[in-house]
């Protein structure tokens, strides 16, 4: 998802009337490292919102509930579009629901935690119930990389390679203390203190090793994360956000 180095301002037209300028691809360059991902905003040229602030990034027009009730926004259906940043979002929800219900882990275990990872997939506590089986042997077909066990400096390269070989969208679960923080081998000369030095981690499952139930809980949390990637849907601005202190 390409965007300008200075994030969302350039992607959002100052004036909605000159919308197509935003769609000018020449203004899109590669993301600078460490830049925050901002959604590409489809400039609305067909109708003016009752809450232009939502498009200009200045926040809701109403800060108090009484102003909202005083206005006629609640009577019209245009209010529900008030704060949406991206218009075609419902399809993404469906896709996320699909993805969260079939998370195929990669069949790769590093050390002790691998045994508990296998135990989480076996009869007693059955990970397959959430569609997290079969373990794919090839990283090309896996969705989740469960890093189970101590990561050594010699294994770091191959693990990065596995992570790069997995096709997007992919997620990483750090299982065990060694992968979360270095664990009991933090002092060693050949281990890496936590895999978040190497790759982005979505869910940490501490424990040495964590029980299979712990891993399953982490995977369910990952599913929730996949679903709520863009924020919690029910709160997604049916009406403008109202501060808590009102």
């Amino acid at each position, binding site marked *: 998802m390409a965007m300008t180095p200075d994030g969302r301002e350039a992607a959002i037209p100052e004036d909605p009337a000159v919308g197509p300028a935003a769609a000018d691809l020449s203004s899109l360059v590669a993301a600078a490292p460490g830049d925050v991902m901002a959604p590409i905003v489809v400039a609305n040229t067909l109708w003016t919102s009752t809450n232009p602030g939502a498009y200009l990034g200045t926040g809701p027009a109403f800060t108090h509930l009484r102003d909202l009730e005083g206005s006629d926004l609640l009577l019209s259906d245009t209010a529900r579009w008030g704060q949406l940043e991206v218009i075609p979002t419902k399809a993404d929800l469906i896709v996320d629901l699909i993805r969260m219900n079939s998370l195929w882990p990669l*069949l*790769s*275990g*590093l*050390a*002790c935690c*691998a*045994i*508990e990872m*296998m*135990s989480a997939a*076996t*009869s*007693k506590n059955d990970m397959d119930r959430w569609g997290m089986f079969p373990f794919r*042997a090839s990283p090309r077909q896996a969705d989740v990389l469960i890093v189970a*066990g*101590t990561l*050594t400096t*010699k*294994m*770091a*390269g*191959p*693990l*990065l*390679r*596995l992570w*790069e070989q997995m096709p997007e969208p992919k997620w990483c679960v750090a299982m065990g203390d060694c992968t979360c923080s270095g664990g*009991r*081998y933090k*002092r*060693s*000369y*050949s*281990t890496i203190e936590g895999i978040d030095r190497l790759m982005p981690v979505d869910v940490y499952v501490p424990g*040495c*090793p964590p*029980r299979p139930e712990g891993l399953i809980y982490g995977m369910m949390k990952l599913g929730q994360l996949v679903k709520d990637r863009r924020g919690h849907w029910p709160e997604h601005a049916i009406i403008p956000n109202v501060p808590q202190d009102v």
Partner: protein
Amino acid sequence: MTASPGTGQHPSMDDPRIMLDGQIGQFETVPPYPPRTERESEFYSLRDGEMFLNMGPQHPATHGVLRVVLKINGEQVVDLDPVLGYLHRGVEKLCENSDYHHIISQVDPLEYVSSLFTEWAPVMAFEQLLDVQVPRRAEYIRVLTGELLRISSHILYQGWIALDLGGLTPILYSFIERDEIVEMLAAITGQRMLFNYFRIGGVNGDLNHEFMSRLGDWMSRAAKQHEANIGLLNENEIFVRRMRDIGRLDRTTALRMATSGPNLRSAGVPYDVRRAHPYSVYPELDFDIPVRGTNGGGDSLDRYLLRMDEVRESLKIIDQCLHNMPDGPVMARLPRLLRPRPGRAWAAVEAPRGLYGTYVISDGTDQPFRMKIHDPSFVNMQLVGLLMKGNLIADTMAVMASLDPVMGGIDK
């Protein structure tokens, strides 16, 4: 595996400020430097019709992060070169830098399928250094838990060997039994897998009711269930045909290769540390040492069947332990801070994979001056290169699984 090393400089992954030649993350089956040893130059030179096939460090069939470079001719394995160290955690260095009590937790994850044995040998060595007399109840508890763990390890081995041969179901049946055992051990140790249970001069905590009730329930059906699981595989023609006459190991070779444990006994050598060099209360217990392959050495099927026999023997031992378990304390009286007199000690136990030894040098401080851990699967893994020549790729899995390696122990 297929890309060629690019030229140009890149920052070293050790230190980004260092510029190195070549390309990051390029996997090279053939090392990108000239061969350093005779063996390496012999292995990494191909005759026509041969090609290298790299397995691992992440491969479904290499138990853990073992990497094996196969030199294959069609489907036939001409030669192979195991590359270790992808799980090397420097445990020995950590042990030399930690307190005698901490060492028990440091060595736990070495043989993570049977952790208690990795605690047992160091603890025995420290007790020799300190001249501690372990209470007999503690010894009995050690034997009891150890044999339970031996059973779970052998049962997992049964499932794994079936999984590597393509059978889906046995591994799940094995894990049912294994979960039962580790749950009952967790009842006294508090952990499912890396029990930090043995202590210098005893064990940490006495048997409790939950353990005994779980053990009773399990023992009531263990033997029958084990026979059922065995029947699932031993009566399968495909399984037997794939295991028989594969990787035959004869007596002299096994001894010369310094093999130990079931792999040695399946080659016809009745060597078991529990009998050959008695420790703990094993002299008081009545059990047999199953031996196979006395005529011309043992193959993979022998190695598999021998472990299945050992499970029966372990069940016998557990039964005896439960019957003549003495009363009394489970810990000897010891000071908190242990400073043994300078000296050297060596203790070895019979782990599920063979002789598990520990060699400790004390220099009078509260940390060992040198601590060497001898892991059986490290030595047994050498047999892979010996037994696999001329077999097919599929047999590679059968032989490797039948040797029962645990990478945590191999790489320390």
